[in-house]
């Protein structure tokens, strides 16, 4: 299982000013076994794309397009049937659990906490992948956790109890824990689900800032067309398990394509800043 697992920095050293490829997906494919044998299995792929440091990439598509499946592949939870998925040059599904957690951080909707926990304790748990299995956190761990809290603007929440936080505050704290992992790849699974429009914008703004300020790649699984367009550098468009297009929002948002994928009457308008806007046609 786990090796001595001391703190490992990413293997590749970055030249100042250059961005590195954090995630490389090459012809990755996967197939879900359906529980009912008569039902068709769900296949994903083959998909190829890359994500670099400082990039905010959206995995876009309607429900049942394979976004979550792709996410599990990126997180190393499933092994692709063919092709490769690499983070910082290492095949993800081959990585030791702790090493993987040092490279990839996944943010999901949180399960219910059973016992009271303070915010800083929760965020400090993000340092688990570094160090021995049974250990007490070092000063450096506290430093990283503190930085993570600051980056999401949750520093004043530090001593609060987790179950007393509002939904938005909790989400920021969960994000902070993921950042404390010091990942090379930050993955978020439909993070805007329960937020109102103000919350959605705030979150995406924050993700944009994180991507700009840090060397990791940020990938967001979403079906929110406008948010993806406004904030993301690139978009991976999925439809029924196939990857239809990878590129900037301007490149990907073509009306016939979007209409086919989202099965809704849409119109695409290009705005002066080069980012398209999607408008729902009335009937």
């Amino acid at each position: 299982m786990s090796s001595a697992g001391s703190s490992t920095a990413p293997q590749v050293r970055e030249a100042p000013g250059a961005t590195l490829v954090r995630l490389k997906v090459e012809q990755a494919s996967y197939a879900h076994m359906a529980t009912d044998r008569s039902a068709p299995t769900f296949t994903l792929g083959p998909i190829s794309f890359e994500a670099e440091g400082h990039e905010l990439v959206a995995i876009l598509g309607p429900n049942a397009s394979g976004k979550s499946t792709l996410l599990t592949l990126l997180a190393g939870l499933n092994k692709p049937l063919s092709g490769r998925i690499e983070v910082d040059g290492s095949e993800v599904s081959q990585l030791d659990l702790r090493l993987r957690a040092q490279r990839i951080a996944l943010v999901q909707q949180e399960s219910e906490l059973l016992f009271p926990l303070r915010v800083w304790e929760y965020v400090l748990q993000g340092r688990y992948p570094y160090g021995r299995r049974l250990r007490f956190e070092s000063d450096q761990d506290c430093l990283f956790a503190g930085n993570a809290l600051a980056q999401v603007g949750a520093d004043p929440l530090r001593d609060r109890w987790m179950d007393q936080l509002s939904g938005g505050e909790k989400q920021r704290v969960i994000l902070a824990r993921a950042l404390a992992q010091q990942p090379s790849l930050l993955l978020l699974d439909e993070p805007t689900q329960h937020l109102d429009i103000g919350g959605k914008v705030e979150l995406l703004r924050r993700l944009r800032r994180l991507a700009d300020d840090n060397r990791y790649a940020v990938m967001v699984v979403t079906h929110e067309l406008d948010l993806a367009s406004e904030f993301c550098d690139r978009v991976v468009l999925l439809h029924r398990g196939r990857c239809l297009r990878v590129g900037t929002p301007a490149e990907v948002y073509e009306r016939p394509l979007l209409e086919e994928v989202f099965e809704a009457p849409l119109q695409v308008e290009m705005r002066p800043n080069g980012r398209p806007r999607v408008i729902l046609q009335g009937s």
Partner: protein
Amino acid sequence: MRPLTARRVALVCAALGATLFVAVVISLRMGAYPISIPEIVMTLVNRFIGRPNEIPPDFWNVVYEIRLPRIALGILVGASLSTAGAGFQALLRNPLADPYVLGVSSGAALGAIISLAIAPQTAGMIQFAAFAGAGGTIAAVYFLGRRGGHVDTATLLLAGIVAVSFLSAVIMFLMTTLPGREFRGMAFWLMGDLASPPPIRSHWLYLLLVIGVGSIYTTSSDLNLILTGEQEARHLGVNVNRVKIVVYVAASLLTGLAVSVSGAIGYVGLLVPHLMRMMFGSDYRLLIPTSALGGAILIVLADLLARTVVAPTELPVGAMTALVGAPVFIYLMRRRVR
């Protein structure tokens, strides 16, 4: 931000250890036979410096044959049950879990009944059979509780509940149909009774205790994470399935150990972890050792009460923990509802 340090764990354990020591001293001192602290000390010292003949036989009997074995057993049982309870509460993600919810004590009781029916006079048979029953149940529930090759918490819990009711029914059936037997001893065993120390050399039992508590302790960081969500823990690098197996086996063995030697003492495994959480926090790196020590203290004191409160009648210690435990539990429950 003041994270838990090894130093703090050591300090708290030292404080609890000192409390346990005081409890042991008080428990050694009190009882139906009048003996004073200097006489107790004299008895202990003479034994250690190898002069057992200097000790009056009465003192020897009272200190070494009656009180000390009971206290030692109490420490063993209290520590085992409380640690197992803390482990199960994490494993099953349920604050109401106690060590018996997965059927270990029912299996042990069945073993005990069968041994009483077959060989009631053989010394040590009942403990051995109880442990065998516990072991069988642990294995059965584990295999029932697996799903797709790994331990699924909800399925495990269901399997345990089924095991408990099935085994209880079998026990009831046996108790009413086995010929010519009076299961008098069973009543005491079911309530929890520290008066019958097992014939095996105690240091093996303590070794098992240390191994059990130690195994669970090695997973305490993992448990902290698992308690925030299994998926989340997996993403942070925890080998969740392996941790679950380790905790399941260790906690079940600890429970089987305790139940085999003293019957099913109730409330300890449920309450002590909660009490320790209230006093020292939910971090399992501190909760495991404090539960073990806290459980030992509780049982030693409960047993003391059980044998002195209506002397010379001796109440079974399980009755005492239930009498005190139930109101405390109700209080804790109301506090949670806040």
